[in-house]
């Protein structure tokens, strides 16, 4: 699986052709996050889930700051304004993520991206009891540095990205991949 991903990215890097220049721009959009993709189960047969833990992301801000021809820095931020709420309202989960990848433009409006990021996974609870067990109370955050790799395409004012976010990449047991799909609209800039 890892080899396949590497080959996929190498292949995409070599599909080069002339393309329009991207100015510095700011995009806003939304997406879908599959957290711990393939590592957690959500099915009764305990098979590895295809999407992992799923999060809806009402907000995704993406900036493109042009550095030189075909190369941009693209800081992006996502946050789940509406948290995942437990059915019994005992607690909720929110996520925010900041990534700063370098973007390389190639082909016809395609881009490959790679960089570092910071993941915050916060669990909030209202306390109380469920039978003889306690329920979580207060707010606890786990924070991970990440490596992200992705591809995207921009057409005019619209942009779509698919990113793989690697958590704990150098820990054999903890290593996990999250999949983030986003669609964004250029408020400022975009391809001319």
């Amino acid at each position: 699986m890892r080899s396949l991903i590497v080959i996929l990215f190498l292949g995409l890097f070599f599909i080069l052709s002339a393309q329009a220049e991207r100015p510095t721009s700011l995009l806003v959009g939304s997406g879908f996050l599959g957290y711990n993709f393939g590592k957690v189960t959500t099915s009764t047969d305990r098979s590895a889930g295809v999407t992992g833990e799923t999060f809806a992301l009402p907000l995704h801000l993406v900036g493109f700051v042009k550095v030189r021809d075909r190369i941009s820095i693209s800081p992006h931020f996502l946050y789940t304004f509406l948290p995942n709420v437990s059915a019994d309202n005992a607690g909720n989960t929110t996520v925010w993520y900041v990534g700063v990848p370098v973007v390389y433009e190639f082909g016809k409006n395609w881009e490959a991206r790679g960089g570092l990021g910071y993941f915050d996974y916060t669990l909030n609870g209202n306390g109380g009891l469920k039978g003889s067990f306690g329920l979580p109370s207060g707010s606890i955050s786990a924070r991970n540095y990440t490596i992200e790799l992705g591809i995207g395409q921009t057409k005019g004012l619209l942009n779509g990205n698919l990113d793989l976010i690697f958590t704990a990449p150098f820990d054999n047991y903890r290593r996990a991949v999250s999949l983030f799909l986003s669609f964004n609209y250029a408020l400022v800039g975009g391809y001319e």
Partner: protein
Amino acid sequence: MKYFVLTFSMAFLSLASFDAKAYTLYFSTPFVGWQTMPITVDYNTSNCGKADISDAIDSAINLWNSVPTSSLKLQKGSVVSNVPADYNLGTLKHLTVMCDLAYSSNADVGSPLDSTVAVGVSKLSATSVINYGEVIVNGMSASTGYAQAVTGSFLQYAIAHALGTALGFGNSEKSYAVMYYLPSDGNLILSEDDVQVATYLYPRDEGQAGMFGCGSISSASGPSSLPPQALLLFLLPLMLTVALKYRLKYRRLTTRL
């Protein structure tokens, strides 16, 4: 135009939030998990028959060590000669896994049903920190839960669950969770509930130690110090300012040309 519609359809779809799972905690009063990492897990294979307790402990340790957002770090200790009665005597050196020939009458672990395979317990210190625990495995050859009589994957699942209990995790309502009360055969894999309870009691903070998963064994706890909204309020104006500045510069350049 179709891309515009697609983008905003996606945005509206995203407004629907997914359910978080309902995990629980072993103690009903506020408490803190084990504080010293790594947590050593000793074991005694006496009275276990042919059940491969050692292999099951390895699987359980690897499972709980695999939560990316948790600082939990378990390590396998040594073979010890402790017996179940040592729990009450306070003579266990580490969290210890033992087989009990009188499993269903062991009051220290709540006299479990003889159809169950393993059970975990832990104690709180005066400051409400877990500092003592054990996992008792069913060694009653005449019982349906006898460790030797169940499959290897069932035993791994039961010990992973019992170890979770000793770490402070409560039961889950999800039938596919490790912390579901009823073990079963099958793939030993984490569920969202398991990830969340391990994260809640043992949150990982790579801002303090162990970037990218390197050698972080400390346990950090406490509420988030930086509300996400604060970061957003900082980032949004910054990105707008930078973007507008470059946009104006770009326009001036194109106008001149």
